[in-house]
């Protein structure tokens, strides 16, 4: 890195470091308050947008304007659709599984002070690699449980490796060419989509639709406990939780984890203590890509059963989940569960009330917006008498940093 590090990460490191400084309790408060405020803003948006929608029976007519969406009803349907039956709980846990993985993938890099937006691309590439492996090896392997397990393991390995390689790329570009990782990862997301589409259309397509072959039944992880229709397997969920715990343990106890945190929290100290910043950047990115790729693999095996080019923006959701969890892999679990409720609730909402499921995307943005404003949250906190955070350490740090 010679005498000057990549510009953005240094800055990012200070800021992320500052976020870590805020006490854990304050961070949890900020996260819950952000979620609550996002729901309030969402309710106002729903009320307002309901005036522009067309519906048979508006719930409220006021001043000649027909309001189609009742926010309370909307949230009730969402909650019911997310946790009202074993089937819907299965759907929510299915979302949660993907969100935990994507959230951990993002959190690992954010902890290092790297703004990695590329989990989406790694998700796409990983899923594609997993599906391609299924298509090419399903005929060779025996069509029984053993073959199924082999297919599953190989498919997930392919997904992880593809994701790791695709994740390493922006890491190398950042570490050795100072290419801003926010931009490179976003560009790589677009490229991933294009490559995936072309690959499926030209090489993997079997029928008329642009999609890969189905994962054979015997390779689909069995849904125990929950109804089969919810495409959720506890056998995947438990390892997912272990990955979150593992990432937490790795960050706390392994040399790489220590370097990641040090680079994120105190970049100057990291430099003086001889941390090889370039290597940390590339390794962090690779690790994150590995988990991002696995997310794609799980999506193919457990959720969709094949691969097609237009996939949900799980990688972007992972950013919200990670930010909500203060980039703590353990915090990612409850954050993913909460956001999972929103996501699967939104689908029920669409089907039952005709309110666009894109509401989940709206909330995704608003949540980050509020988490990004700790000052705003503290202000609100003080208003409501939660004043123990009145001396804002972040502010002092900013002035300090302005001096160098």
């Amino acid at each position, binding site marked *: 890195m010679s005498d000057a590090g990549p510009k953005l990460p240094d800055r990012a490191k200070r800021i992320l470091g500052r976020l870590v400084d805020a006490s854990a309790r304050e961070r949890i408060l900020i996260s819950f308050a952000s979620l609550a405020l996002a729901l309030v803003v969402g309710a106002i948006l729903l009320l307002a947008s309901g005036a522009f929608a067309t519906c048979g029976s508006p719930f409220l007519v006021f001043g000649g304007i027909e309001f189609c969406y009742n926010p309370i009803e909307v949230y009730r349907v969402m909650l019911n659709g997310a946790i009202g039956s074993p089937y819907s709980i299965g759907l929510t846990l299915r979302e949660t599984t993907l969100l935990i993985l994507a959230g951990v993938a993002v959190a690992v890099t954010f902890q290092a002070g790297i703004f990695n937006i590329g989990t989406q691309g790694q998700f796409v590439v990983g899923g594609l690699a997993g599906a391609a492996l299924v298509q090419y090896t399903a005929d060779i392997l025996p069509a029984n449980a053993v073959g199924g397990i082999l297919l599953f393991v190989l498919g997930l390995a392919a997904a992880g490796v593809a994701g790791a390689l695709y994740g390493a790329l922006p890491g190398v570009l950042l570490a050795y060419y100072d290419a801003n990782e926010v931009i490179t990862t976003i560009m790589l997301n677009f490229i991933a989509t294009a490559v995936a589409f072309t690959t499926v259309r030209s090489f993997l397509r079997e029928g008329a639709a642009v999609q890969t072959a189905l994962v054979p039944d015997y390779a689909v992880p069995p849904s125990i406990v929950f109804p089969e229709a919810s495409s959720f397997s506890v056998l995947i969920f438990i390892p997912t939780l272990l990955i979150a715990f593992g990432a937490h343990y790795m960050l706390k106890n392994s040399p790489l984890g220590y370097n990641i945190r040090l680079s994120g929290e105190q970049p100057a100290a990291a430099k003086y203590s001889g941390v090889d910043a370039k290597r940390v950047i590339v390794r962090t990115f690779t690790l994150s890509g590995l988990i991002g790729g696995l997310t794609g693999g799980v999506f193919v095996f457990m959720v969709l059963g094949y691969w097609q080019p237009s996939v949900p923006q799980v990688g972007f959701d992972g950013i919200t989940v990670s930010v909500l969890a203060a980039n703590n892999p353990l915090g990612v679990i409850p954050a993913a569960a909460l956001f999972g409720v929103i996501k699967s609730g939104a689908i029920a909402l669409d089907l039952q009330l005709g309110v666009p499921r894109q509401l989940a995307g*709206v909330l995704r943005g*608003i949540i980050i917006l509020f988490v990004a404003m700790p000052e705003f949250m503290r202000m609100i906190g003080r208003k409501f008498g939660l004043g123990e955070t009145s001396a804002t350490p972040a502010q002092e740090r900013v002035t300090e940093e302005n001096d160098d």
Partner: protein
Amino acid sequence: MIENTRLTRRRIGLLVIAAVAVLGVVASPYRTDIRNLFTVGFFNTALTLAVPITLAGVGGLYSEKSGVINIGIEGLLIAAAFTSVLVTGTTVSTVGADNAVWLGLLAAVVVSTLGALLFGVICIRYKADQIIAGLAIWFVFLGLAPFFSRVYWGQINSPTVATFDQIAIPVLSEIPWLGTLLFTNYPTTYLMLIIVPVAWYVLKFTSFGMWVRASGEHPEALDTAGISVNRVRYASIMISGALSGIGGAAMTLSTVGQFIGQGQTIVNGRGFIGIVAYLMGNYNPIGTFGAAALFAGLDALQVRLQQIGFDIAPELFGAIPYMAVIVVLVFFGYTRIPDRAGENYESGDD
């Protein structure tokens, strides 16, 4: 020494681009095909496609020069593209197509500027981290636009609406070649052609331009001179909003005539490409336009190749501008950003 490395890398970068271009033309076995490819129509298309990238870039440049890195520009383009179609579509029956497109453009500028103001308040008033706040603005509009599309039109892509007509400027448009390239264009393209030199002049030669630069480099000096740093930053951010407004509307009202809410919407990363354009253009509006024209040229090439029947995967070809962005970042990524960009400034007064 670092300065030297950077300079060398930039020079190498420019050389590589030039070499690839020359080689491509000279060594190609399809020389006549290439002549068919680079028609004046091709360059005109490239110019039209450069509008959103250039305006997003020039706007982002002002914001970053003043000390606020605006990654949210992508979101502002989305907001503008959506609003322009919404307003044009709903007003066309009362005011007629000719006026409706202008109303659409105006509304896009207003909404995008308000979006930028929101970003400014979050960054300046509430001291949010600029990168996270920018991501948030992007995500908010990436979520809102398809949501509202479905609320209003019942589908994620809007129906088609009226669009601007190309205006041929009398006399000038008769000039061979140049007349077709520069003087037969959409109003939004003319706006860009005016805005770029004006933005360059303002930044370089006016006192406001000096304040913007000082606000990003030496805010204390500006403060001492009695100019409010934060006010200058708000103004610069809102400029980025207004320009993104025109850029977003140019996409929908000058060519496509529709808002596409699928995937990453019709904007599809052009805001981020704009950011790379001003990095490559070294924070110079004219350089930004040059870089944007390069990316737009690749985009136009991809369209043109398909038109003349090259049977290559169109989606992969569509990704060429994104790949070019990464290549450019490798060579030009290490531009010197304003000293105090990304930091909050607190005046000693309050």
